[in-house]
């Protein structure tokens, strides 16, 4: 072992600290051309390793503090610099020492052969064997908890970072989009082992969700759920696709994610298929869930085709959340056919909910829905026409109307006023 009494160690520690903590690279340039004096180096190495092979230039393994290629580990995300390995190591050693101090050690001692017979009789005498029939507490608890349903996600419990020691873990806040807004303000903090896959993290979240008896209960399998990058308010950021279920959690550095339910299990991106599905297609589970799921302020997205005046329709994803309506061309439809069909100038657009004034189903074939809004730039009413199946139209209308009823602003009032005026006029004419 070599530490602060070792010149070489200190010198090289200082040098490496300079190299490592200097962003400009100046230290590296200067230090590169100067080396630790040979006598100090050799003496230091001897002190450290004893008579070790001299040809060994860099220390391996334990000598990690010596290697210059200390670049960011691949588990390091973002720009935050990692702390010096030495500091981390010293801290770890300190902790281990503290822990060791708490453990009392008892070494085996060869027995005293002069042990007295009385002692032997006292401690090793045979007893009468009495059979005791004891009651099982486990059986009672099992009976008491017989009705507790087993979580279908229990197999994912093993990825919980809290019950693991040493394994690197990630602690992530998970916003649960299926819960009510009130409850969504309290995201679940999940520790997951860094080597788990995203799908396994989803399973763990679902498991903890059921353990905490959150409402509404989750159903299905992990394939029915997806994790998105969460915005500051906890809503899923629809600008990015969901995290690929097969990826390893440790790869990502996100501290907040949002769990959403998707209708289809995630599929591989299919080539030459116009209607490629993505997991961010997040709509209500079942028609009878509409009351609860659609009448919420959660983010939901719907598939459809945006209709244009001249050019053919574009496949889009319509996202509706508490603050805004967003329209973006389908991110995964990259096949040749779709490229030809889609308008190249269609950029993802966001409309704040304040400018949305109404949403009505249109009696067209095929079915479509119109979203009316006020264009604040051109100062006029406009509408978007989106073609999709009747069920989706119902859902869009229900959802948007629900939000508008709560959040409808001045434009909506003005519009409604205007419309009632128009219809009154029409009835008068009639």
């Amino acid at each position, binding site marked *: 072992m070599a530490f602060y009494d070792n010149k070489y160690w200190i010198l090289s520690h200082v040098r490496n600290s300079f190299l490592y903590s200097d962003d400009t690279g100046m230290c590296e340039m200067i230090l590169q051309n100067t080396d630790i004096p040979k006598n100090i180096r050799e003496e230091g190495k001897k002190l450290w390793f004893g008579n070790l092979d001299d040809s060994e230039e860099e220390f391996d393994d334990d000598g990690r503090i010596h290697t210059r290629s200390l670049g960011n580990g691949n588990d390091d995300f973002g720009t935050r610099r990692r702390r010096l390995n030495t500091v981390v190591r010293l801290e770890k050693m300190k902790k281990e020492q503290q822990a060791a101090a708490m453990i009392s050690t008892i070494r085996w001692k060869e*027995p005293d052969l002069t042990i007295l017979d009385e*002692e032997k009789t006292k401690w090793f005498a045979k*007893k*009468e064997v009495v*059979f005791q029939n*004891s009651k099982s507490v486990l059986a009672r608890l099992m009976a008491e908890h017989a009705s507790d349903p087993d979580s279908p996600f229990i197999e994912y419990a093993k990825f919980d970072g809290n019950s693991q*020691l040493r*394994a690197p873990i990630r602690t992530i806040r998970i916003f649960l989009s299926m819960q009510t807004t009130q409850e969504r303000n309290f995201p679940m903090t999940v520790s997951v082992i860094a080597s788990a896959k995203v799908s396994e993290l989803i399973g763990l979240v679902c498991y903890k969700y059921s353990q905490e008896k959150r409402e509404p209960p989750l159903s299905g399998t992990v394939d029915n759920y997806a994790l998105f990058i969460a915005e500051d308010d906890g809503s899923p950021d629809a600008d990015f696709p969901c995290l690929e279920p097969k990826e390893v959690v440790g790869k990502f550095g996100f501290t907040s994610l949002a769990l959403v339910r998707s209708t289809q299990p995630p599929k591989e991106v299919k080539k030459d298929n116009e209607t490629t599905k993505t997991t961010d297609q997040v709509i209500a589970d079942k028609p009878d869930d509409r009351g609860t799921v659609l009448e919420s302020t959660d983010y939901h997205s719907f598939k459809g085709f945006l209709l244009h005046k001249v050019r053919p329709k574009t496949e889009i994803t319509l996202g509706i959340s508490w603050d805004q309506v967003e329209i973006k061309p389908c991110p995964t439809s990259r096949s040749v056919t779709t490229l030809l069909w889609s308008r190249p100038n269609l950029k993802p657009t966001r409309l704040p909910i304040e400018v949305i004034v109404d949403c009505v189903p249109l009696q067209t074939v095929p079915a479509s829905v119109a979203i009316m809004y006020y264009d604040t730039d051109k100062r006029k009413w406009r509408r978007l026409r989106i073609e999709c199946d009747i069920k989706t139209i119902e859902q869009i209308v229900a959802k948007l109307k629900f939000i508008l009823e709560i959040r409808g602003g001045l434009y909506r009032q003005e519009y409604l006023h205007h419309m009632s005026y128009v219809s009154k006029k029409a009835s008068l004419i009639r």
Partner: protein
Amino acid sequence: MGNNSGDQVILATGGYDHSIKFWQAHSGVCTRTVTHPESQVNALNITPDSQLLAAAGYQHIRMYEINSSNPNPIVNYEGISRNVTAVGFHEDGHWMYTGGEDCSARVWDLRTRNLQCSRIFQVTAPVNCVCLHPNQGELLVGDQSGVIHIWDLRTDHNEQLIPEQDASIQDISIDSSANFMAAINNKGNCYVWSLTPGTKLPDGEEGSTPTQLRPKSRLLAHKRYGLKCKFSPDAKYLATTSADQTAKLWKTSDFTLHSTLQTENQRWVWDIAFSADSQYAITASSDNTARLWSIETSEIAKEYIGHQKAVTSLAFQDGTP
């Protein structure tokens, strides 16, 4: 936890992932993980006062507090050159016994730090298992050469028994009434003896004669490596576990097969324990999972999932010991 200790159910499992996990037995939830550094866990046992868990590993026996959140052991028994394969306690907690691959069985005095009454019993082959006779005065030591040693702790008198040539004794069990003794070997064969308690000598001073054994039955229990054998608390069943990915329950009335505990994913079954009413059994397996089985239906009632590697030992206490 937090209940009075008489009502406490303790389930701990350990294995190759250098950790020991505590479970809520009725729900399958892992409540705590403690470190078992630098070694697999060979054997686990709970002290009679339900306060400590002993874990036998390479060169160490470590003691962990059960009702605490301390992830580290509080006592470390060392000074053994090789693997410790067995650990157990005198029913009043006076001493602890261990067996190990250093060809010896030991008794550690738990009352004082200087091991006043420590004892050692040396054999010629690595010790695989040690079983304490319910009379608290005899240790049964099984070794790799296939010998069962019956060591009378009071008199140091010992007897040998070789049920089968060239077969390593893997585990020994005596039922709580001391009517039967069973031993399983690496061939998967299980031998059963009926026991007659030693008679007391007239003067009482010299203790008693050793327990007498009469061969009772030979079970061709498993086709592969046998690992553990254990009598249920009511002595109605004898459980054997094996590398053949099953645990089997045998009726002690006639030593015929009662049921086989197996499931698709299960691999080597390393350890088994019974609930106090002999209605449930808990197994530990190489598939990283411990399982609770209903004995009546032979079906899995709970799974304890969380270990990253094989689970090779478990300790279970169902209410008042």
